[in-house]
């Protein structure tokens, strides 16, 4: 499998490490136990496009949000996690 790092270009998957679901968000400091259990343990397992966090550890050390089809491994989108997180904050602030 290959991933196209937005900074480094197309690379083999051996340069990356997988972390997991990119759709969960860390709860606020005062969130209840249920929110934390959800965040830490509960994951969907969709058949189809899925957003995941990958780390270009052997390259530019960027965390990436990758959209991968879990059935075909087709990668339809790769973004810098930092840009995604920043954009969400700006949206949230509006």
């Amino acid at each position, binding site marked *: *499998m*290959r991933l196209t790092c937005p900074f480094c270009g*197309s690379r*083999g*998957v051996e340069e990356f*490490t997988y*972390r997991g679901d990119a759709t969960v968000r*860390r*709860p606020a*400091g005062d*969130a209840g*136990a249920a929110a*934390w259990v959800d*965040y*830490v*343990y509960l994951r969907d397992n969709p058949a189809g496009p899925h957003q995941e*966090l990958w*780390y270009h*550890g052997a390259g530019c*050390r*960027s*965390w990436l949000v990758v959209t991968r089809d879990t059935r*075909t*491994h*087709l*990668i339809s989108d790769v973004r*810098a*996690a*930092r840009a995604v*997180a*920043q954009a969400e*904050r700006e949206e949230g602030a509006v």
Partner: protein
Amino acid sequence: MMDARMTSAPVAGAQPRRVAGGNGIDAGRTIRFTFDGRQYTGHPGDTLASALLAHGVRLAGRSFKYHRPRGILSAGPEEPNALVELRTGPRREPNTRATVAELYDGLSAASQNRWPSLAFDALGLNSLFSSVLGAGFYYKTFMWPAAFWEKLYEPMIRRAAGLGRAADEADPDQYEKATAFCDVLVVGSGPAGLAAALAAGRSGARVILCEEDSLTGGRLRAERRQLDGEPAWRWAEQARKALEALPEVRIMERTCVFGTYDGGTYGALERVADHQSQPAKGQPRQRLWRVVARQCVVAAGALERPIVFPGNDTPGVMLAGAVRTYLNRFGVAPGRRAVVYTCNDDGLRTALDLARAGVAVAAIVDSRPEGEGQGAQVAQACGVPFVPGGAVTAVQGRMAVSGVSVRDAQGREQRIACDLLAMSGGWSPNIALTTHQGMRPVYDETLCAFLPAALPPGMVVAGAAAGVFTTAEALRDGAQAGARAAQACGFAAEQPALPEAEPESCAIAPLFHALADVPSARWAKAFVDFQNDVTAKDVALAAREGFVSVEHLKRYTTLGMATDQGKTSNVNAIALLAEITQRPIGQTGTTLIRPPTQPVAIGALAGAHRGRHFKPARLTPTHQWAESQGAVFTANGLWQRAQWYPRPGEMDWLQTVNREVRTVRQAVGFCDVTTLGKIDIQGPDAAEFLERVYVNAWKKLPVGRARYGLMLREDGFAYDDGTTARLGETHYVMTTTTANAGGVMAHLEFCHQWLWPELDVQFISVTDEWAQIAVAGPQARNVLRHVVDPVFDLSNEAFPYMAAGEVTVCGGVQARLFRLSFSGELAYELAVPARYGDALARRLMEVGAPYGIAPYGTEALGVMRIEKGHPAGPELNGQTTAHDLGMGRMLSTRKDFIGRHMAQREALTDPARPTLVGLQPLNPADQVVAGAHLLPDGAAATAASDQGWVSSAAFSPTLGSWIGLGLLSNGPARHGEIVALHNPLAGTVVRARVVSPVFVDPEGARVHG
């Protein structure tokens, strides 16, 4: 009894079956080889199979299960029968297909799976019991008693059903791995592949053309066919030359593309030196390529199907296309009197080629009724008897074909004497590469073949692999596919001018077996899968027992599960199953083919990463110096670290380590601790960031001070620990454990980039930048005074415990000094730029000599940390919490940090959780072993009474006793209690007292000294 000489008695030198005109051999040169110890000759360009056939040798091996005599079925990589041991000694390679083993001078091969000799095989008796060795035999027979499996059944089966012998010594050759990139990968260099490569290559696209054979051309070399009025193989050579002249085209012969992987990645194996007796110096035997291609044209051709009839495995029964390959490419006649048995027009060509080469053709048997196909015309052209609507119902001869029984359309049987039966059940497109991603092929009734349907992205299939069987159409199809692939990569591709091909017919009527009306007992000798000895009867039996799914059939009968992956058997098996279950072939199913399509040696997959170079070694800055001191090294992740430094006269490592510990506790020692992860953290929000990743507080840490920090995972369990020093207002340097250095870096980046992008902070590893050396012991300060430049005040007041700062050493070398202690003694860690690490070690030895200095290794380091009760890897095992490690009070309640919420869960704060304690055996000589269970004194060793475990253990020279750290339920409340350390592996129980985990200097006075 029979002797090997009775089957074939060639004269060394003479090649009685050689005929003129082999386009792929150099008949002017003769090379020598041996098979089963006998000398033979051949020509450059021969395979082992073609050279053996040239000598009339037809018996090549014994079958897997029944030890039946087997000959050479094919002329290519699909060969299921002629498997040999190639080479000798450490280079001996079993199960090598004689049909692809290129001949070289001095080649040595041996038949396998026979004893004592190929012609007389004692275990050939298996054949007599074949009725009990049928489908599912293993499952049914070796069920009970279970103990018999290991002692009796398995060794017996392995001996009887063995294949070749692996070499007994390590492989002396090198292997290589490499990556290649291209726009268009073309797999196969037959007419379609060559045309595709020309079309794509001429557009300027970067093309890689892979051909698993040693020569390009594919079937163009195997057939007597004309292109533009010239022999077709000449055109193939010209096309190759034209491709060679294109700068962006790379032709890779002897390179098999064996797998399709995600994202346009292909696996290929290049046999760099397999055609030589041994690789040249520095040369790899094989090279594993990962080819990254934007587009791929699969022009892998097709594989001819055998016909299933009784005795179809007798040596001398050969695929018709293979017969033509031996005639036309190798100049070898595989027999003197042949019968051709076919269901299609392509097979008929065999009779023409045989007749032209001077081989007598005794009959053409065509399964199609009279008037269908071109059988009558061909028979007439060769002057050969023709049997339309016929079938071969039996084969005479055991070690080799001596005749066949043929039944005609009217049901009359006759025996025809012959020594060669050329059979063709039609061609199956070689679609393996199209199915590796899970795409299933569909059955085409007209072509009697499975064709690729959906394809992986970027892949096209051309030529015979796509069911396009005539040369003219394959050329056109290939050119189109090549042009389209180049266009998809943005190149303006045109179709190349193609040569004129003669008209040809590939008409076919389905024929998979000739079993109708054959007595069922004879089905047992009608082979479907030659390599795994699966017969038509086995398929029928499996179906009768309910295994009617192809996947079940495969597993129950082992059909298609040999090293040939059923290349010649899968389609026939599906067709048989379809008939038995009365379903159309297309609805009976297919099996998915997995990579690799050809056997790939583990050595090639490992490449250069073997033995000492299995993984890279990271060397510390003092490595060479430590080597010169006779240090014994140990691997710590990738790092090589000095484990201890033996001295002359020391009896064992324990004596050495005890001496090293005593040196630190009583005088001074030093240890290279460079391997601890070091991360430079800078930025306006650096302090805030540390607050969020560590459990404890950081904002109030003054510049010039260090602090111990503990990190949790988000689930509340302990992750890593280390000290972090504040070097400036917005500048920190963090240390991590050696094992987690990379992981903590990724964790910090994760927290920063994903969780808190608003924090302004930067990280970079400085692990390699600094040679960091711990100097520990009561004399540490005195030693350092000789190293650190005198302007820096090292007094306890000026540079107290946990102080950190920049200094210069040895007359101006920039350095960092930290007053940290892992040993519990007065201690420092001195960091100098890595290039000076070696010199610093030497300097410390010099100036420390009057104080009794000695280097110490990781073992002494470990003993001292156990004596001080510091948790390390065995305690930070991913299952322990801060509370378990006695650090529950470190958790700040005034801030958010990673793991805070989950750490507060009831189950994680339960005082009954196993918690860190010290363990001191009542008898100091009783060895404490890590992993022992902790039980109440006198309790039975049951799971119910298990209360924890010993995590770390060592002999403490300071206490003169074995000691341990353990995690014990309610531990801190139980100091003074006696527990049992139960080691079920050794069957020992040691009684020990629960104590504080800090065995030495519990008040911590020494570190402040």
